[in-house]
């Protein structure tokens, strides 16, 4: 009986394998890879929804060149490296994606970047801030504010504009938060500030009372807590319970609207850096996009979703550009030259996205303005938009 069971299993598998190979009608596919299940399922969901909006908008305008429809193929990498490899393999070789928005976690992005490079698929990560990501290949971009630039600008702002000089840091032991903490520390101390204490917790930790007690003993003027919303809400909650009153500084992870659900009015007053809201600079796109997102998904988008929306649009603009220059039969069969797509993206200058003005540097990292926000009763009020130009903190004004 067992023999039959195993052999039948083989046959079903082979049959289904052949079935799924049949050709669909001609579409241009954009891939998304991120955690759709498990602890960080919410990140994957928020970001893939943003990409879906971008693609639906473009299809309403007739798709690429008015004829070819676009499709989003979202694969779940469960935040794990082996699943990310399997996901990218399928996206490249089965769905023949032209561009990829993803992956979400740096660990997955690092694993799939070489594969995208070899397959000449432009990969724009909206959230992986690992330093070495874009060095893995010419096709590897990122449009999230890298830790370095965000932390540099924020450190200068805190020193020069807020005038704090004794800061404590409480970060998480993961690549995102650790990177921000280290870069903030180097920049802040090179500007003469002092990091008087540095404690760390684990992602998914529930209890930070111990670290807070140690930090509070050093009487810092403010505490910098780069991390994700769940942990930051805990920190704020437990600090209040312990009667700790201080100024709180955070990073773009704080921009997730969930923070108001989780921390309630404790979030008020927290100052954090994020991709800027350039509507004051004549960029109404962000407000418009957020309204559309809220209407359709009943959730406000976080900063990573903004980046995903921009990444998708940049990829589609590149496709449109390459499509226009392509020969008629290339156009009919929608076969676009990957190198040209890459070059278009690489040469992007001052692209006005919902996450701010985007320019890709020579190392394919992104040069973006940094918005400084303060949370106030369920709203993020922008204090100003800043940039570092040859070592000087400049405010970007209309």
């Amino acid at each position: 009986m067992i023999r039959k069971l195993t052999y039948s299993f083989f046959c079903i598998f082979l049959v289904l394998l052949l079935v799924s190979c049949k050709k669909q009608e001609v579409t241009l596919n954009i891939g998304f890879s991120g955690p759709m299940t498990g602890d960080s399922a919410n990140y994957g969901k928020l970001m893939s929804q943003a990409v879906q909006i971008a693609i639906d908008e473009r299809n309403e305008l007739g798709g690429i060149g008015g004829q070819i429809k676009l499709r989003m193929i979202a694969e779940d990498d469960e935040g794990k490296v082996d699943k990310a490899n399997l996901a990218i393999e399928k996206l490249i070789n089965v769905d023949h994606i032209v561009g990829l928005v993803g992956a979400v976690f740096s660990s997955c992005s690092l694993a799939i970047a070489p594969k995208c490079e070899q397959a000449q698929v432009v990969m724009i990560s909206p959230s992986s801030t690992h330093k070495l990501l874009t060095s893995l290949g010419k096709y590897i971009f990122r449009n999230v504010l890298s830790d370095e630039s965000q932390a540099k600008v924020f450190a200068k702002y805190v020193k020069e504009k807020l005038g704090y000089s004794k800061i404590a840091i409480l970060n998480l032991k993961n690549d995102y938060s650790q990177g921000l903490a280290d870069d903030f520390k180097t920049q802040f101390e090179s500007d003469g500030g002092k990091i008087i204490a540095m404690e760390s917790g684990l992602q998914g930790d529930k209890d930070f009372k111990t670290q807070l007690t140690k930090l509070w003993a050093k009487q810092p003027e403010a505490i910098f807590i780069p991390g994700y919303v769940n942990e930051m809400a805990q920190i704020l909650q437990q600090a209040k319970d312990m009667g700790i009153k201080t100024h709180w500084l955070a990073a773009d992870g704080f921009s997730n609207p969930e923070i108001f659900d989780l921390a309630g009015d404790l979030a008020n007053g927290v100052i954090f850096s994020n991709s800027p809201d350039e509507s004051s600079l004549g960029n109404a796109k962000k407000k418009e996009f957020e309204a559309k997102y809220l209407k359709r998904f009943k959730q406000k988008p976080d900063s990573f979703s903004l980046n995903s929306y921009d990444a998708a649009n940049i990829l589609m603009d590149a496709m449109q550009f390459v499509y226009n220059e392509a020969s008629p039969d290339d156009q009919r069969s929608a076969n676009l030259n990957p190198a040209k797509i890459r070059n278009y993206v690489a040469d992007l200058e001052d692209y006005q996205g919902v996450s701010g003005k985007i320019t890709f540097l020579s190392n394919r990292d992104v040069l973006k303005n940094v918005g400084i926000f303060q949370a106030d009763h369920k709203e993020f009020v922008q204090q100003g938009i800043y940039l570092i130009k040859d070592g000087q903190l400049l405010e970007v004004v209309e």
Partner: protein
Amino acid sequence: MISLVLLIGIYFGIYALLALGQNLITGMTGLLSLCQAAFMAIGAYTTAIILTSHHPLPLAELIVIVVFMGSLFGAMIGLPTLRLKGDYLAIASLGFGEIVKNVLLNADKFTGGPMGITHIPSVQLGRILISPYDKSVYLIFVWGFVGVILWGLFRLQRSRFGRALEAIREDEVAASSLGLNTTLYKVVAFMIGAAISALAGMLWAIYNGSVIPQSFDFMLSIMVLCMVVLGGLGNYFAALVGTMVIVIISELPRLLGFSVLIPAQLDQILFGLILVILMIYRPEGLLGRPVSKRNS
């Protein structure tokens, strides 16, 4: 589609190695240990550190060091815990696994902490370049290991050492009163199992090109145990079948393309359902324990 199948074949091979190691420890010797992920992490990190150091070693020496590190940790974890029985051994080994992961996460100087180690280069086997970009070569490379290990384990199963392990599983008290130094046999079995998992870790690190601590969590160890139990404890061939079933089920939605249509949660639910159903109808595993072998 072919290269996706090749990739699944590669991961099937890597998980098969883990399952073979687990089957030696749990299937043959009856030690319920849940720390294959830790040994895999040791193998992966040893490879990552050596290959990214300024004088990376050739493949042959790398394999020797990975096997050595694997069996060293196998002994370090095996010795203290082997006095324990059943579920207590499972938990203690699970604990050790988490400690290893925790150390990797915090020993920033060597292991890069949460950032892990990236840019792990490909390796050279004689003239052939073993790299993640050439999947068919990598598949043969991985399954070469599986073949050698499988042959070795079959030999071991029929050898006196294998017979001693089975005796220990059947009745350790009787075995010890017949003059068998049961602790020594158990530790050696643990070391061999650990070395095999370390090799799997090496293959994993070279393919992914980067290693981070988070991917070696205790769910991976539990999944490996599931593969062995699903196939049938004590039977090496069954361990391969069990691995294939689990790898295929978890990848079925992606393989057949409907991973795009249904929410990802449904894939996981499908996986859970199949596990429950299989256990109800085949509690002793798909192929069950091997019928007593004839002794030529």
